[in-house]
């Protein structure tokens, strides 16, 4: 009879939900636990100025005009300073693909949050290194 089969269905569903109560949750305790990001993760960039030839191929490849090049600012013989605007960047990877001199890479760092919008424009001092100020909030350190 239809009525009893419906009762059976309801019992099945309640059984599944009841079991789920005692399972380990899937999510993790985010700012204190984090997963390991894969090697290929397209996070923020790092610019190796030693290898850079100031060819501006990355600037031309960028679909959203997120990269600005300053050819006057030289640290080595023929390099240039890059300014990355992470308010515009879409992390498509075309600039890294365009670089033929191993001078530009993605890193697995993806938490780019800043308190100020201007801080998201990474100048040559920030884009060439992975060091950054730790983020502290209410006495707890998050990175």
């Amino acid at each position, binding site marked *: 009879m239809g009525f009893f089969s419906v009762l059976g269905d309801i019992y099945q569903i309640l059984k599944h939900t009841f079991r789920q109560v005692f399972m380990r949750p899937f999510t993790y305790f985010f700012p204190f636990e984090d997963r390991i990001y894969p090697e290929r993760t397209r996070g923020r960039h790092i610019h190796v100025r030693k290898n850079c030839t100031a060819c501006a191929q990355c600037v031309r490849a960028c679909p959203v*005009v997120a990269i600005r090049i300053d050819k006057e600012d030289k640290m080595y013989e023929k390099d240039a300073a890059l300014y990355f605007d992470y308010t515009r960047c879409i992390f498509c990877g075309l600039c890294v693909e365009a670089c033929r001199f191993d001078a530009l890479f993605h890193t697995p760092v993806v938490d780019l949050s800043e308190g100020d919008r201007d801080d998201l424009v990474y100048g040559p001092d920030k884009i060439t290194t992975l060091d950054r100020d730790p983020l502290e909030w209410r006495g707890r350190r998050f990175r």
Partner: protein
Amino acid sequence: MSESTGITASTLARQIINRHPQVSSRPLGTNEIELVVPSDKIRGVVTMIDENVHDALPESIFGIDLENDKYELIYIFWSHSNRMLVQLRVSLEGERPEIDSTCDIFPGFEWHERETREMFGIEFKNHPDPRLLLLPDELEGVFPLRKRFQTDQSRLDETGIAPPKARPKTGGDDE
């Protein structure tokens, strides 16, 4: 949909050309055909497609701006059971060209026609609901997909490299 008319693209083209001799055809691929249709015959051709192909799927209508007030309008139909693609090409001219609406035959074309109207300024006569579809009200009559619509390219000056060479006209940049 058990019955199968089993019509092929070339048969359909022949039937249409027999009825409307002004239409010319051009093969595109296997069982894919393009019909060049004069703008006053479009309702007749679309009606014939509706009658002869039982599962005609109205895929899209869109315009192309060929500059100098020349436009092309492309209708695409697809039939799953016959594996047949029909593409109609209509040439239009003028500042605000006009053509008959076909959305009473295929209701699915209604929004495509609305979009083509707001983007290219091609008027569809007897369209039941000629409002703007995607654009906000202040862009009424601006027709953004026409080639003469200027877009803001000022970001490119920020890159620091020499300003890029003027792109070829064909690239769509009217600077």
